[in-house]
Each structure stands twice: as C-alpha cells, then as structure tokens.
C-alpha cells in the first residue's frame, strides 16, 4: 500500500466521531472607534511608521528625492511599465541591491498593524523582503478592525502568493534583545492616503 493510502486509511480508522465547525460570528469581536488611530498606534508599537498624506504626489516627490540621492528605489506604483517589468525578472543578486521598495497594499488591519499585499502588487515575490527598506501605500478606507474582517475582504485562493506584513523584519534570538532588520526590510513606513 502506498504511504498515502496507508496514512489515509489509518486516519479514517482512528479519527474521532465527527464534530461540528463553530460559526465565527464577527459581531462578537472587538471593534475600534477610530481605525486610523488604532492602526497607527499598533504599527508604531511594533517598529513601523505611519504617515498620513492627502495627496499621492507627496510620495512621488519623496521617491524622486531618494533617487536623486543616488539610491536604487523600486517603485511598483508609478514607474513605467518597462521599469516594473524589469523588476519581475531581475535576479535575487541584483534585487539585493535595492535600497527601498514602494508597494501598494490591499487591506490594513487595525488590531495588529498588518497589511495584505498580493503578488501582482509586489511584482516580484522577493521584492518586499529583499529590499533594505519598505514603503507600503494604503488607501485609508481600506483599513479594517480585525483579521476576520480582512479575510472577509480578500480571496487568498485568487493569488499565487500573498502576505500580511506587520512592521520591519525583526528578531530577539540573542538574549531576547529586540533587533530590527534581521533578514528582511530594516524599516517599514506606511503611507495612508
């Protein structure tokens, strides 16, 4: 008998009697009066930064200034189609040289500061992780209270890859001292538009 059939038949023989799935009632979970305030406080508490802006032009100007300073900035929002396509096929070695990446987020979660980013927004799956610094642009009406609300808005089966990102890469593996910038981005700034 194959391992597969052996495992499945052993499970079917040994499993307990069928029990019911609970009904996850979103009405029973926490709500926040001010989603922006909750999101900002939580993300700041885990090492991220939140900047509220009224006009996307402010970000575009920041990108221009960063580039003028000589940094490689990957802009997946406003750059030319050619430039964005190039990122799609760039090797890991060259992506490792990116100083900062700008990516659009889908949904932000107030309870934990996490933002859902999908594959087409990342352009290249490595991009949000391999860059030195990460900036996420999120329309503020895309904030929800909890993860339950977030999963109600997104469809994980529709994308090849997606991630909730909450703050910069970090570790406390050396004597429980918090160090920001383990393997991924050393900083995260979220622009709420």
């Amino acid at each position: 008998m194959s391992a597969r059939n052996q495992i499945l038949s052993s499970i079917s023989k040994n499993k307990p009697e069928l029990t019911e799935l609970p009904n996850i009632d979103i009405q029973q979970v926490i709500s926040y009066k001010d989603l922006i305030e909750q999101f900002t406080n939580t993300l700041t508490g885990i090492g991220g930064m939140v900047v509220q802006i009224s006009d996307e032009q402010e970000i575009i100007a920041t990108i221009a200034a960063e580039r003028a300073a000589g940094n490689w900035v990957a802009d997946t929002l406003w750059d030319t189609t050619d430039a964005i396509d190039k990122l799609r096929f760039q090797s890991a070695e060259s992506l490792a040289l990116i100083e900062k990446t700008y990516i659009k987020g889908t949904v932000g979660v107030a309870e934990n500061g996490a933002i859902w980013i999908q594959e087409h927004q990342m352009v290249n799956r490595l991009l949000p992780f391999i860059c030195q610094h990460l900036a996420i642009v999120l329309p503020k009406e895309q904030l929800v209270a909890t993860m339950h609300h977030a999963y109600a808005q997104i469809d994980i089966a529709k994308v090849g890859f997606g991630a909730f990102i909450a703050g910069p890469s970090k570790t406390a593996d050396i004597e429980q001292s918090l160090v920001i910038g383990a393997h991924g981005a050393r900083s995260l700034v979220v622009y709420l538009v």
Partner: protein
Amino acid sequence: MTTTTIKDHATAAAAFIKDEPRTDWHDDTLWFVRQKRDKAAHSLPEWEQLRNWASQIKNHSLSNLDNYLIEFEAKATANGIKVHWAANAEEHNRIIYNIIAANGINKIVKSKSMLTEECHLNPYLQQQGIEVVDTDLGERIVQLRNEPPSHIVLPAIHLKKQDVSETFHEHLHTEKGNNDPQYLTEAARHHLREKFLISNLAITGVNFAVAETGGFVVCTNEGNADMGAHAAKIHIACMGFEKIIPKAEHLGVFLRLLARSATGQPITTYSSHFQKPREGQEMHIVIVDNGRSKQLGRPDFRNSLKCIRCAACFNTCPVYRRSGGHSYHTAVAGPIGSILNPNLDMKANADLPFASTLCGSCSNVCPVKIDIHDQLWKWRQVVVAEGYVATSKKWGMKGMAFVLANPSIYRISGKIGRWVMRTFPFLTNNKTFNPWYKQREMPTPPKQSFTEWYKNNK
C-alpha cells in the same frame, strides 16, 4: 548531530540548575515572555471566545482529517504544487533527498520546521554530502554550535550573548568580545544573505494548510522563510498532517491567537500565504504521519494533535523554565513535548510525563485548549502500566499508597518521621538519603501532627 547517551529529564535538569544565576535568568526571561502573552491576550475581550473557536475548529479538523487531506491534495495539485506523503521520518527524509539529488543541488537553506527536527533531516542530508543552512537566527546559532534548539519558538534561549559572540567569532569572524546583539545580528544578516542568494532549494515548515484552497501559510518575524523560498528555484514545505484547517476564514482565528500566545506580539511580521509556485518555480509539499495517526487513535491523547506550536506552555511551565529545553532530549520540549513524545517512543520518553508539577498552567494558556496537564497525568498511568518507570519510583509510590490508605500506619509513620527529624537531623538533612533536601531546607519538625492539635483544640 552529537550522539551521546541520553540523560533523563531529572538528571539533565540537575546539571542545568548547577549554574544558579543562569537558571534564574532563564526562568525570568521566559516568565517575561509569558507576561507579554498575558498583556496581549487581555487586550482582546473575545480572547476566550477565540480559544473556543480555535479548539472547536481543530476538533472538527481532526474528526474529518482524511477528507480534508484529500481535498487539500486535490486543490494543491490543481495549483501546480507537487504533493508527497511520508508515513515516517525515513520516508520524509528520503523524499526530500530525492528531490535535491534529482536536481543536482548540494547547498540548501531551511527556515524553522520542528517537523524536520523531529525527523532528524539535517544529519541525514549532511551524511549525503548536502550543506544545510538553518536560516532562523536562533537556529543558525545553535546549528553552528552543533546543538539542537532548546525551545520551538526561541531556539537559542538557553544561550547568553557572550556565547553567541564566541560562536560568531569562531564561525563568522566577528570581533572577539563584541557582545552587542545589534552587531551580531547584522553579521548574521550578511552571512545568511549570501546563503539565500546561492541556494537553489529552500525548505520551510508549514503553520497552517488550508483544505479549501490547497495553499499554506508560513509565519516568521525575520523574513527568512520568504527570503529562502522566493529566491530558490525549488521550494519544499514540510508539514505534519495535523496542520490542516478547513477554510481560509479560519486563518483569522489562528493568526490572531498564534503570535499573541507565543511572544505577545499582535501578529508575526510576515504571515506568508503560498498558493501556487511562481513562474518557473517548483513547489513541493511533504505530508508526514510519523506516529500522528497512532496518536489520533488514542482517545486520551489525540487532542495533543491540535497544537499550533506557539510554545505558550513552555513559557509558563515552572519546570521548563528551570530545567531548560535540552533536558527534555526531544525535538519538541516543554509540556506539549511531554505529551507528544511518549507516543513516538514510550520507553525513551517515559521520564517526560513526570517532568511536571501538574499545576495546570499549560492548559490555561493553551490557545487551542489542549488539556495538557490531564494528559501528563494520564501518560504517567500508561507509562507505569507498561513497566517503563524505575523500580525505586514504583515501590516508593506503592509504599506511599499503602501508608496513605491506612490511617493508623499513617499516624505512626508521621510520629516516627518527626522523631527522626528531631533526633537525627543529619539523616534528613542529607542529599544522599533524602533527594528532597537537594535544593531545599528541611522545615522544623512540628511537635504534634494536625490531628493531635485538632483533638486538643476543637
């Protein structure tokens, strides 16, 4: 892997607590993590409701596991993921080696996976000439030291920064005596980035596999699973079959509980949802049994399979905190390890159910409501019935049961005991004759028993 004679928990713990300041540090540090967990849990009024939901989802999943695995396999295959099944550790290791060998690869990176520790994958691959680099910082530290992780979430929690500094000086050529965690982490970042870029194959664990989508979720704070998986041509994810949950919406429940229970964070930095391989990439999933279906058939112990590996039970356990993970001599230590491991090898792990005060704190913090302390007690009954305890313990317990069941013998024994303590104190204040005295002062023997006092004062 260093193979030495395995010491039982009590013996290994006795060695661990010899260094008192370090033991206190270990104890305090883990208690601090436990307190952070409390703060995070108390910030949500629905915390107990969440635990109930999580527990019910896992109970349901176990009760319909075969069907969910079949559904998961079909969906994952349709997504372009190759699904493999392994009945035991050997099959798991061989499947992975065959993929590596078929692609002519000799350097791989691996993010945290307790399953691969359980299966001893690293030593197996190293024997075949494959370089395996653990990329979680804590795991890399213990790997360079040729040690196993001592905690499933904080693998190097038994070490001080001086230890890490020495290890990095030796292997990564960092400055001697520079103990700054920031500096040491930066050195590891550069060292491991090189490994990510040259590895053609990455292994990750799986936190949750979703039956209805055929995808899986991997959680890290460092981003090492993503760096490995997205840079490599081949990604292999390894999962124990109990990682299955029915629906995507259930992730909401588990991701809210996992990091809060583990470290007190509201969520891990990265919660990555793998659904399909990227263009040109190969993605594999290895579904492993290795004793799990047997555990599923033990009504008293099956719900240990609900575990989501948060380690809250480690951090709260007074025995774990003061004996260290290595004392448990298994891949998964702590209270949960003590109820999982006797199933894998009862004789080798017969000591573990006794490494507990049965205080119940583990069950109280468990996010999926596993009755850990009840199971510890029940394993003791099984282990004794199967004849796996030391004769001295067996006869000691039988003697104790006899005395406690006979009131007159009990009263006489008490009298003799008090008399001995008063007359020959060296007999009880003696580490050889009286193990109780090892870390404790003996109390002053009372003049009378409670019964005698009660008779005089009622």
